């Protein structure tokens, strides 16, 4: 066993040279052509709370997945307490003492709270006394995260998103892991809940265990963590003691420049018939009544975390929420909700945030994807597809979207995320009758260069007289691009601002940090 000379973290009793809790050297991982993690070296000490920050798409989640056995690195080593660790599967990582609260919820809906807390354990408590002890302990962990009133026999599918998140944190607490990783654990939580979670995390660290805290909420990171590592474009930018950092320094590390107030020219909202008029749009259980009138040439951003309702508005407009109620009219004409085919025909172009499952046909060529919504236009009288018409249409659309001609025959799966998204957008719009474009997370999984192109594309669409509405969780995208930002929390609108608006305001509202009344 090789012993790496580690620097003990402040506050670790004993001191002296001893191996760090976790030592990851030169991790690399790529997906297709996209180098998600380029070169990440990370050292975590026993008993420290380590913050892990970076802009969207920086590679944070990829690193976390490699540490927790969900992804195998392409290159690099990971050592735990000085010895090489088997992290080939989540189960193996758990055996090696790593517990994770995933960004994607990893509690199982069909099981009860108690079963979920025990999930992953290889044996069950034997005997009445042991069961009682286990239950007491489980209740204690639930109480630690503020769920003291939750019955262990409640099925998880009956819980709110926030409660499910807390159950998952409680499970990680119960693992007694030497390393606990929390990936964006607070996104769906309220202030009070967050305070409780922080207290629980500090208790874990005080017991000599290590915590990795991944978050966008920089104030929280500085308040909670001992050290902070910033990663950008798959590389480590810096690891700094939290005490030596301010929020603005941290932001600078993350974006690579100091933040200047964004100046943008405010546009006049054009007069005339609204492109889309939404009255009392609601979805049982996820969206309270919402109104919006969008005129041609305007860009509206709906800001909100997962489950806030922002994404639900977009999906409802696109006809993908079967329980949506309310009045939606495109150019004065009422649209029946709940049927995607109806929305498409009404002149609503929808671009999914989830290209893999509902956006594109990945195995099909770019040309086939572009023509999928317009099969009638590329076929002749007897229903035969015309190669010539399809080629012409696809080439035209591709040119507008900035996709190169020679990619038309390539399967969509071989394109980069940015190019895939360009194809989706171009496809959604290229109907003569499209007046409204709705997008869900327009730049998810798209690299920096691609983002700029897509933002220009959206702006261009508005200039051409369309109404653009999108939901996003990405702060830059929320304050730079739109004319109006509407913030969501807990299924309802909490604020509406004409730009320019500060990112602090938006962030505050979508994370529900000022005031707790809703």
């Amino acid at each position, binding site marked *: 066993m090789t012993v790496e000379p580690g620097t003990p973290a402040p506050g670790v009793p004993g001191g002296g040279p001893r191996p760090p809790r976790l030592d990851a050297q030169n991790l690399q991982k*790529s997906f*297709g*052509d*996209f180098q998600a993690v380029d070169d990440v070296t990370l050292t975590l000490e026993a008993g420290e709370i380590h913050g892990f920050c970076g802009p969207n798409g920086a590679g944070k989640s990829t690193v976390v997945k490699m540490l927790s056995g969900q*992804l195998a690195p392409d290159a690099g080593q990971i050592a735990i307490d000085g010895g090489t660790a088997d992290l080939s599967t989540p189960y193996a990582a758990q055996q090696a003492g790593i517990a994770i609260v995933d960004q994607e919820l990893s509690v199982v809906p069909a099981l009860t709270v108690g079963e979920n807390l025990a999930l992953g354990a290889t044996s069950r408590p034997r005997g009445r006394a042991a069961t009682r002890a286990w239950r007491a302990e489980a209740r204690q962990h639930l109480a630690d995260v503020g769920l003291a009133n939750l019955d262990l026999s409640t099925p998880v599918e009956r819980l709110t998103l926030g409660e499910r998140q807390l159950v998952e944190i409680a499970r990680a607490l119960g693992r007694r892991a030497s390393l606990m990783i929390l990936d964006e654990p607070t996104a769906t939580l309220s202030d009070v809940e967050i305070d409780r979670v922080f207290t629980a995390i500090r208790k874990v660290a005080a017991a000599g265990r290590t915590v990795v805290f991944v978050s966008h909420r920089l104030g929280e990171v500085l308040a909670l963590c001992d050290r902070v590592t910033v990663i950008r474009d798959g590389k480590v930018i810096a690891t700094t003691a939290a005490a030596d950092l301010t929020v603005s320094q941290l932001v600078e590390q993350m974006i690579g420049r100091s933040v200047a107030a964004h100046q943008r020219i405010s546009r006049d909202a054009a007069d005339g018939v609204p492109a889309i008029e939404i009255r009392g749009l609601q979805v049982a259980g996820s969206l309270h009544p919402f109104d919006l009138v969008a005129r041609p040439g305007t860009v509206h951003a709906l800001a909100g975390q997962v489950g806030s309702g922002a994404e639900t508005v977009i999906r409802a407009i*696109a006809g*993908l929420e079967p329980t949506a109620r309310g009045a939606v009219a495109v150019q004065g004409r009422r649209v029946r909700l709940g049927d*995607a*085919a109806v*929305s*498409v*025909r009404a002149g609503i172009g*929808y671009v*999914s945030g989830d290209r893999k*499952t*509902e*956006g*594109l*046909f*990945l*195995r*099909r060529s770019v040309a*086939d994807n572009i023509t*999928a*919504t317009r*099969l*009638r236009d590329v*076929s002749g009288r*007897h*229903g*035969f*597809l015309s190669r010539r018409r399809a080629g012409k249409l696809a080439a035209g659309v591709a040119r507008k979207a900035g996709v*190169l001609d020679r*990619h038309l025959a*390539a*399967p969509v*799966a*071989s*394109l*980069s995320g*940015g*190019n895939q998204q360009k194809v989706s957008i171009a*496809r959604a719009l290229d109907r003569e009758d499209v007046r409204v474009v709705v997008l869900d997370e327009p730049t998810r999984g798209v*690299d920096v*260069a*691609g983002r700029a*192109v897509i933002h220009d594309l959206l702006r261009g669409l508005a200039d051409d007289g369309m109404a653009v509405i999108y939901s996003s969780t990405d702060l830059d995208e929320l304050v730079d691009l739109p004319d109006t930002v509407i913030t969501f929390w807990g299924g309802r609108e909490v604020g509406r601002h004409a730009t320019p608006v500060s990112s602090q305001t938006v962030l505050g509202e979508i994370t529900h940090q000022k005031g707790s009344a809703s």
Partner: protein
Amino acid sequence: MSIKDLVESSPGVAVTRARRLVAPPRWDTAVAVLGLLVVLALGATTDNFFTVANLRTIVTSASIVGIAALGATVILVVGGMVSMATAAAASLAAIVFVGTLDSSFAVAVVTTFAVVGGLYALLGWLIGAWAVNPIIVTIAAASLVQGLVLVTTDGALVTTSSSSLDVLNRRVGTIPVSVFAFGVLAVTLHLSLTSTRWGRRIFLVGENREAARVAGLRLGRVVASAFLVAGILTAIAGMFLGAITTNASLEVGGNLTFDAVAAALVGGASVAGGRGSALRTLAGALAVATVSDLLLLRGFDSGAQICVKGLVVLLAVVIVHLRSGEGRRA
């Protein structure tokens, strides 16, 4: 400046690794060629294999199963997995056809298509619009058809006095009509799937149901139309089977359910949907018939033939799965 430079100089453009993931080296072709060689070698060492009469036997036995397999292919492509009702539907077709033949040939054909096609279209609509589990719903349909036929015919054989049944048994030269029907239907279906709007919709829905929904396709209608075609193809197979036996009962369908799927799966269609071809199913039907014939000539009984068929299907399924790279852990 090479193409590679060109590509790499344009930002955000992918090539290389991702492309290779999509189109890996075609080792599956090698397996197919190897399989063919094994069959040929075994054939060469088997008496009476390479004779005109035997080859005609193979083609003939492949033809009726093959027509049903074309139907199975459409269902696989549209993402409807497998119809467990093929044998029951073919029997039903034979019964309806033979039962109505006394009026006229045309009436019998139209009635048969309407009954079986209608049943299948209904199943397809349920599967498309509601996402009903295709396996379960077709098992239920098969059982329902069996019950219905038992009640109406009381288990008796359905026969006809009409001689027009012989039309389907006729031979052109020495080749039975069913072989020509198989060839014509395979080519027609191939063209319909690859170059019409209908075929494109079938593939799109089968490859990605949610994306097709978002693209504004009517899932219920598309899947129903695919099943309608599959039902008509199954009905044609059933009519040929009825013509051979000259009377019809529930037994006519025999092992058609699994024989049809076997040919389609050996032809490379995928249960995951969006993958399959009428011409490759034609090859699959011929391959399965050849292997069965080979085993028969070498003295194996029908049990052994079916057993080998199952193993060939298993092999085909695994190869198609590995080649498509579906479900590999991300």
